[in-house]
């Protein structure tokens, strides 16, 4: 197996984010995810710093690397100048490149993000567009948004904008600009990452015996990844612990 | 003063205690389990009855065991018990023989002198009087010792004595008053009438010379009677209840009843049979080596009897078994403590005495703590093997013992499988020692399953703790052997070629192996085969505990070290080259406590193995690897 640590070191964020950790826990102390999930950024950094291939592989397949919310509060305080959040980003990227992300429930969700935000970027030039935030799918957006959404033109006009206009908020991004974006994605590896996510997800869908479509969101696998919740994200799964223990031994 | 009225306190007391004893005995009998009832019924018409009578005579009257341990203490007990017994027997004979009529009520014999003040002036009666005075003097000498023991226990060779409750004190006071008041009552009576022998006669005439003896005498007869009556009334609620109960206990024991694993009338009888003699205190290492003087068996039994919260006492015991070894009454102190550990703390202190016992008997064994859960254990499929070696948790902390056993077994060509090579499951004994049998059973089942599936004929363990539980609580087809037994077997079979080590060694009997399982000779045979075995001052059944015992749940590490240091000091008095033990826990404990080299018996034997030539060694290690791979 290739050396995962050196592969991580190719990521500039990883190189910047991990020098030497002394396990002080200052990152976990203020980590919103550590309070909510069975998650400890300190421990992840400590595990990565073993440079042990098996351990890193386990991490890439684990739930734990997907818990971080990337608020980056950890960067502010680390007395060794590390950024666990960036280490996580590098791990997540590698996990997707290698297709390991589909091994975990939280990892599989990457497919949903690709199909929403990812597709939006290339289709509309925005990560989020108002006409894509359907109150049916986003009940938590509440009545104000529902009203806004149902009267999109009128509401936007009230605030001095024009939906899909030529300027101002939520203007239409011209086709030639979208083409530039696409070329950037091709040149810089953005497309490759999209493809990696798509391919591994399709494989996983087949493995799980779920319906999969090449586009859109109206199929079983998509619905599954956005809503599945095993409820096991607050405690350490026994088998994971044992594997790490065995590997270390 | 109506002179005969003073017998009333005595009579009331006597009939009370007689009726009480009968009622209580019937109650005990009725609450026995069916098999125990049968045992008792069979015993009543068989040998056990005769054995019991013999034992009662030897132990309850002569106090032979205490005599052996401590002659002064033995004499004290004997003079009081046997002396009083003789006084009653010969008093009754005297009353029947010399009195006005035969077959008198008991009071007539007890107060014989009052009713026959002139008796014994001449002839046979005169000689008989000498004998009766002698008996009284005999008792009084014991009483004197008891008083001395009470105030200066050290003079009796005892470090501590038990503390008394107020009922005990009242009973003791009345007991102590019985014989001096009898002496004075008889003496005044004799003084007034010019009768009596060397004791009562002389004392009586001396007293009469300056006191109005005839007027004073009744007062002392009253005191005598009240003392006796009080003593009888106090008997059931004081420690002196042991006097009648012990008889019952001896009979029950001889009928084959044992303590078992929960409270029963047998434990109740044992509880009452303790005389608080304190022998257990003086042999307790916790007392003399660690300065802990409130947890010994006498206190434990007393707490049980008085239904105090004794959870702290119950837990704080090495369970080494030395006290049980010396208990003159033969109370099964270890099992009694384990029962209490199973019970946890005692919450029912508001109940009356009989209620309490019935509750104790019914209390479930498993309600104590959150249920242990070993659901995480995965069933294993072991490979088949003739001999299964189980090192045990503790032995994993002494890898040199494991290495030695491997060498020995390989050298003898034993085809074995190492059951817990990669870390096994605890044998369950430590849980049992903590009073958690149900949980222990889970582990026992797990291990039993592996042992059965392996098809082993012999199960060898290096740890006496495991050994004891394998033998007593596992249902196995395999013969369980401690490695000292197994090595002895290999030597006897001739499959081990051993050199002789020119070393002087002393052997320490681990509690669980020696007193716990009765294995004394095999280790000695093995050691004598390879080295010179020196004697230790305390060995075999009186071997010392190393202090590291898992039996004690609460003992602080510093105190353990004190016990270990003391035991090691005694063991190494003969300046041996090496201190040999047969328990990894003892080894680890002693290593910290002495500068003398401490080895396990397996290590000693391994050292006596011929050094393998290089070629052989290579072959051996190759074989070992293959075996290890097979095992893995």
């Amino acid at each position, binding site marked *: 197996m290739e050396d995962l640590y050196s592969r991580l070191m190719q990521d*500039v964020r990883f190189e910047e984010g991990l020098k030497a950790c002394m396990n002080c826990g200052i990152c976990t102390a203020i980590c*919103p995810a550590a309070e909510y999930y069975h998650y400890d950024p300190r421990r992840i950094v400590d595990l990565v710093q073993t440079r042990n291939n098996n351990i890193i592989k386990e991490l890439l397949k684990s739930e734990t690397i997907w818990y*971080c919310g990337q608020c980056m509060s950890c960067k502010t305080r680390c007395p060794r100048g590390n*950024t666990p959040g960036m280490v996580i*980003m590098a791990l997540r990227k590698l996990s997707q490149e290698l297709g390991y992300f589909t091994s975990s429930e939280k990892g599989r969700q990457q497919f949903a993000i690709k199909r929403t935000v*990812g597709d939006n970027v290339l289709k509309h030039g925005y990560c989020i567009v108002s006409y894509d935030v359907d109150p049916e799918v986003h009940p938590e957006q509440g009545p104000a948004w529902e*009203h806004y959404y149902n009267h999109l033109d009128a509401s936007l006009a009230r605030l001095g904008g024009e939906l899909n206009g030529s300027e101002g908020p939520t203007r239409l991004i011209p086709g030639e600009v979208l083409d530039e974006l696409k070329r950037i994605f091709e*040149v810089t*590896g953005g497309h490759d*990452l999209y493809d990696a996510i798509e391919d591994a997800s399709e494989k996983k869908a087949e493995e799980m015996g779920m319906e999969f479509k090449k586009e859109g969101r109206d199929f079983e696998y998509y619905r599954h990844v956005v809503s599945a919740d095993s409820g096991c994200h607050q405690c350490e799964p026994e088998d994971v612990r044992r594997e790490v223990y065995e590997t270390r031994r | 003063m109506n002179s005969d009225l003073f017998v009333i306190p005595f009579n009331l007391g006597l009939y009370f205690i007689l009726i009480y004893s009968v009622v209580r005995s019937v109650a005990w009998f009725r609450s026995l389990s069916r098999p125990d009832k049968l045992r008792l019924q069979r015993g009543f018409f068989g040998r056990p009855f005769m054995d019991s009578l013999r034992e009662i005579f030897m132990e309850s009257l002569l106090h032979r065991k205490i005599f052996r341990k401590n002659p002064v203490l033995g004499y004290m007990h004997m003079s009081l018990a046997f002396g009083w017994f003789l006084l009653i027997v010969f008093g009754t004979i005297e009353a029947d023989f010399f009195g006005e009529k035969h077959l008198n009520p008991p009071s007539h014999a007890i107060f014989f002198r009052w009713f026959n003040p002139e008796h014994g002036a001449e002839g046979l009666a005169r000689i008989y009087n000498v004998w009766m005075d002698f008996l009284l003097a005999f008792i009084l000498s014991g009483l004197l010792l008891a008083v001395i023991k009470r105030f200066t226990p050290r003079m009796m060779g005892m470090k501590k004595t038990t503390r008394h409750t107020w009922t005990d004190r009242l009973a003791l006071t009345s007991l102590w008053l019985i014989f001096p008041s009898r002496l004075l009552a008889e003496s005044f009576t004799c003084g007034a009438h010019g009768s009596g022998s060397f004791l009562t006669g002389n004392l009586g005439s001396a007293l009469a010379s300056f006191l109005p003896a005839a007027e004073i005498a009744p007062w002392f007869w009253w005191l005598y009677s009240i003392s006796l009556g009080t003593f009888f009334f106090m008997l059931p609620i004081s420690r002196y209840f042991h006097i009648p109960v012990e008889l019952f206990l001896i009979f029950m024991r001889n009928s084959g009843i044992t303590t078992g694993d929960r409270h029963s009338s047998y434990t109740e009888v044992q509880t009452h049979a303790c005389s608080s003699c304190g022998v257990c205190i003086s042999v307790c290492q916790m007392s003399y080596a660690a300065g802990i003087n409130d947890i010994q068996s006498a206190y434990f039994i007393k707490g049980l009897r008085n239904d105090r919260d004794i959870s702290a006492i119950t837990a704080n015991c090495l369970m080494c078994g030395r006290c049980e070894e010396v208990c003159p009454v033969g109370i099964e102190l270890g099992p009694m403590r384990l029962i209490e550990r199973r019970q946890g703390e005692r919450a029912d202190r508001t109940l009356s005495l009989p209620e309490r016992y019935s509750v104790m008997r019914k209390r479930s064994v498993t309600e104590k703590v959150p249920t242990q859960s070993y659901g995480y254990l995965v069933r294993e499929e072991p490979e088949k093997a003739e001999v299964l070696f189980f090192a045990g948790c503790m032995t994993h902390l002494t890898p040199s013992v494991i290495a030695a056993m491997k060498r020995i077994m390989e050298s003898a060509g034993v085809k074995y499988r190492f059951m817990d090579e990669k870390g096994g499951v605890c044998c369950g004994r430590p849980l049992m020692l903590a009073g958690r049998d149900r949980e222990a059973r889970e582990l026992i089942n797990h291990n039993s399953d592996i042992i059965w599936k392996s098809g082993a004929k012999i199960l060898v363990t290096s740890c006496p703790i495991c050994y004891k539980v394998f033998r007593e609580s596992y249902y196995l087809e395999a013969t369980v052997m401690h490695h000292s037994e197994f090595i002895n077997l290999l030597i006897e079979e001739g499959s081990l070629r051993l050199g002789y080590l020119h070393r002087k060694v002393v052997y320490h009997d681990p509690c669980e192996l020696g007193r716990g399982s009765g294995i004394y000779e095999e280790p000695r045979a093995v050691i004598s085969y390879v080295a010179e075995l020196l004697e230790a001052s305390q060995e075999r059944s009186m071997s010392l505990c190393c202090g590291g015992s898992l039996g004690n749940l609460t003992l602080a590490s510093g105190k353990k070290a004190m016990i270990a240091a003391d035991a090691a000091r005694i063991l190494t008095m003969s300046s041996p080259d090496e201190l040999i033990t047969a328990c990894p826990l003892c080894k680890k404990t002693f290593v910290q406590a002495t500068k003398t080299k401490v080895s396990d018996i397996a290590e000693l034997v391994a050292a006596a193995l011929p050094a393998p030539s290089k070629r052989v060694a290579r072959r051996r290690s190759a074989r070992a690897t293959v075996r290890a791979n097979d095992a893995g």
Partner: protein
Amino acid sequence: MKPEGKKRIWAEYQKEIPDDHFFYVRSCIRQTFFAGSEQYFLKILREDLGKDVYEDPRHTTCTGIGYHGDVVPFETIQTVVARHFALATEAGYRHIAISCVTSFGIYSEILETWKHFPETLERTREDLYKATGRTFEVPETISHTSDIIYKFREEIARKAKYNLVDAATGKPLKVVEHIGCHYSKMFPKYGVGGAEFPHVLVGMVESWGGDIIDYPERRHCCGFGFRQYLVQANRGYSLFASRKKFESMEPYRPDMIIANCPGCTMFMDRWQYTIKEIDGITYGAEGHGIPVLTYEEVAGLVLGYDPWELGLQYHNVQSLPLLRKMGIKADPERRFLDRDGSRLPEPANLIDG
């Protein structure tokens, strides 16, 4: 609490915020959910303050949500941002004004990366050229739009029609500030006042007459968490974090929350509705909820703009009690209007007093 201690820290983090000539980049979230804020930012700067703010219609998302949602590689986002720099370079602008805090964080991260790893800058130049034929110069400054409002806060105060005070009693309003995590937690020197006691919103609020509340969870994240909100199953995380903040600020009875990050504004508003639906709890005095406003909206109110033109009605927590308190006369009837000015049916279930 010793205020001089904070002043001492603020003095140490005075970043350079240019005076004029900004190249404006929009925020996906702000333009979608708080379009009025962006419009009024431009209006205030251009009309009230007379500044030159240039917006190139060809600029796009920075892809920041995709980046922090881990579907967009770092190389890609660097190049997308570089394209914006190219547009600015082409238009002759050297100061970037960024509406979004996520974008602002990304711009800071990219600039820092280029500084520490110059090879990444070179690679980005190559990538951009290869993909679009564009070239760029690294801008002189980047400012978050809240930095710019902060810079002109006193000028706004001078033009103020309303202040952040209780019109009836004259007492300052109690305001909770919430700074987007990516504003200065990653690079404290990029934020006004640093990471621990940022001054950017405090300065505005104090200049406009309000009082800032320092409550225990002041620094805690709103809980967006990118993938944590984007994926339905994970939204508990997001709500949990906001709720932690509400419960921490609740004892201080705040009149409003002011935030500089569009995401935070949205979540802290939306989750108040969700919590009410799930647990039946409404925060704020008399169960009115705690209005969550963008700094542009607050500046707009202070300058006397129509709250409904600013878009306050598109928050789940309506600001009517707050407006009343400030003495702003706003007709609740005119909140929800169609293009022709006719009234639309009011949404049910809004949190309003």
